[in-house]
């Protein structure tokens, strides 16, 4: 099979999933996007010569954990938040004022979001105006997007940084401890952490006359 044929087949498969199973398609593209971004940022830290080694020991795992936690949380929190937003409207907890009367006798049936939405929209089509139908569709989709964004902000910008910092901090501590065990003994300060030892300024000594010893300044 030629590269062009393989590419076309893959592209067609992607497009098909994007149209028929949009929720999963968005999950997959988001996870791939985060993995790529995390990999690129890890390389940026790895090849940054101006950054001290000690900080790299925190920032590299921080970046890797950032990508891993973001992808996992997106799978379990962010994508579910969008459904929660839609459910709030479908279960009539949040409704546009104009739809309160027309949905008074509505009893939503169905076990999943899709069938519940069909039941909700079917009722509006039967008893409401075309304006009501548009409002209902906007309310369901709009609340899904709005609550999805709130979920993304909480998971990506609050939970992820807290978790990644905790895990990367533990990683750095373990690495520094390991390095300090392997570091050569510093004659003046004992066996201290390797980077500090490595970048320690040389101790200057001065002599006084015939006195053979040295005084540290």
């Amino acid at each position, binding site marked *: 099979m030629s590269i062009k044929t393989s590419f076309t087949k893959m592209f067609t498969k992607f497009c098909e999933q994007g149209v028929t199973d949009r929720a999963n398609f968005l999950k997959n593209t988001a996870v791939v996007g985060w993995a790529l971004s995390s990999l690129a940022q890890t390389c940026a*830290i790895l090849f940054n010569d101006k*950054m001290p080694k000690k900080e790299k020991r925190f920032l590299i795992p921080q970046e890797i954990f950032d990508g891993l936690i973001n992808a996992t949380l997106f799978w379990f929190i962010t994508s579910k938040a969008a459904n929660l937003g839609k459910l709030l409207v479908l279960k009539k907890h949040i409704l546009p004022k104009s739809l309160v009367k027309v949905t008074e006798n509505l009893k939503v049936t169905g076990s999943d979001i899709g069938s519940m939405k069909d039941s909700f929209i079917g009722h509006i089509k039967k008893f409401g105006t075309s304006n009501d139908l548009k409002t209902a569709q906007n309310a369901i989709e709009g609340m899904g997007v709005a609550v999805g964004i709130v979920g993304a902000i909480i998971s990506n910008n609050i939970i992820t940084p807290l978790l990644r910092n905790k895990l990367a901090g533990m990683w750095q501590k373990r690495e520094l401890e390991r390095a300090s065990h392997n570091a050569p003994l510093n004659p003046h300060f004992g066996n201290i952490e390797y980077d500090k030892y490595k970048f320690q300024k040389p101790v200057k000594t001065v002599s006084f006359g015939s006195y053979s010893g040295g005084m540290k300044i």
Partner: protein
Amino acid sequence: MRPIVKLGEKPMKIVGYCANKLAGPENRLILGVSALASQPFIDFYNKNVDEETRKYSVCKTVSKIIIGTTVGVIVRALAIKYSARFLKSVDVSGVAPDILKRPESRKILQNTIGDILGLGICLFTNFLIDAPLTKKGTNFFASKFIKEGK
């Protein structure tokens, strides 16, 4: 059952905007701005590491968010703009023909192609633009806010 919250005209305008107008670029911008408002502070008050590491972490986070959001918004906006043109030039006859008969599916397919296009572009921009600019940004902020040896 009576609704707990009744949305008036103004809130419904926002909800309607979310349903019809809000797309990838706006979504990325909202996440970027909220990230800038929260993540640097979480890094700055991170008690798991020493002060110097915390400062480097803040510099990297601020640089990454600014560059990532700017590039992300531009790439997504361009991908959506050119997805309609791209849709005309590619053969999509193999994509579930019965589903594509519905008029709304065409729009969803255009968005899907925009997303795939955006992801493909991000593959390059992440490594060729985001990573080197974030590195430069981190070093710039570090030179301004971190005193050597402290």
